């Protein structure tokens, strides 16, 4: 189980991605203990092929999925599944093509910064964007991480973090009667 191995392999294969989630928080200085490595990948056909090839080499399998059901992990599965939560030879590994609270890959890349990680330039989601993504989920377990990241932001930038406007929960627009 090694973040170093995952990031180096992704870089060697030319996968275009941004490190997000707990690993990004730790890279910036958070004391958060995360269980999985999360990345947001560029959803182009070539990039999906490269990422799918790497995941196959890692013997990736869907977390919670049993061997009694088939699981085909290829570029098409990546295309059809915006989020994949996987267990691999290198531990838990989640891949997604967008981030809640930030947007599509282009927005995520714009909200990231380049850091040299294990000697390799790697794009990592910025602390401000991490706060926005954690706040957007409204999950109870992400609240503590967001509060810690805000304190980290203040230490790194010498000023209070900007207030994140949480998405308001509005009634969903009607899609007709959902006729079956």
């Amino acid at each position, binding site marked *: 189980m090694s973040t170093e191995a995952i990031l180096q392999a992704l870089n060697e294969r030319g996968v275009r991605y941004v490190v997000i989630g707990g690993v990004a928080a730790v890279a910036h200085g958070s004391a958060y203990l995360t269980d999985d490595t999360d990345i947001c990948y560029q959803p182009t056909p070539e990039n999906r092929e490269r990422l799918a090839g790497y995941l196959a080499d890692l013997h990736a399998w869907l977390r919670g999925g049993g061997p009694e059901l088939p699981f*085909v992990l290829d570029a098409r599965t990546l295309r059809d599944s915006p989020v994949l939560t996987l267990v691999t030879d290198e531990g838990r590994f989640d891949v997604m093509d967008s981030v809640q609270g930030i947007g599509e890959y282009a927005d995520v890349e714009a909200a990231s910064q380049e850091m040299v990680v294990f000697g390799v330039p790697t794009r990592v989601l910025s602390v401000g964007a991490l706060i926005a993504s954690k706040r957007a989920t409204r999950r109870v377990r992400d*609240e503590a991480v967001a509060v810690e990241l805000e304190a980290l932001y*203040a230490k790194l930038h010498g000023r209070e973090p900007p207030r994140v406007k949480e998405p308001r929960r509005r009634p969903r627009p009607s899609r007709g009667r959902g006729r079956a």
Partner: protein
Amino acid sequence: MTLGQFAVAVGASPRWVLNALTRLRVPRRYDEPLARRLALAKTLHASAGFTLPSAWEAAGRILREADYFKDWQYESDDGLVTVRVGLPRFFTNYQVRLAVAHSSHAAPKRRGRAPSRRGSAAQRAWAYGIDVTLLDANLAETTDVRLRRLDSNRRVFERPREANREHRSDSPGPE
């Protein structure tokens, strides 16, 4: 499963699920076998043009008889029509949706307004019970050191899990 999780697993809106179950006269019990059958019926209904009741019947037959690791093929008696269902692909997509239903939609969400932002970020963190001095210690280290320590801590937590898995696989299953 809640109705929301069930609908995510099926790949439909909750309203579609409720209407479909009513039309098929199936009791509302939001469990995995029903989600699997309804998801396959929805695929046959949407992609192959089956009516929903005949898609439901076909889904039941496929799930009973087919080898899930191979494509399922049905040919009409006169040989004019052949329907092929890529079951490995269907089960892949279904399992991904089921995993999303179990992970994202199961985590408890904060209700009500966002907590107030009185005081500085550091004060709020202390009030929340977060040891802010750990941040100072972490910031004194390089990124590589922080990430290597994360990996090392993960391995410590992974050991009991592995032991638990081995224990479960060694123990005899229910009779």
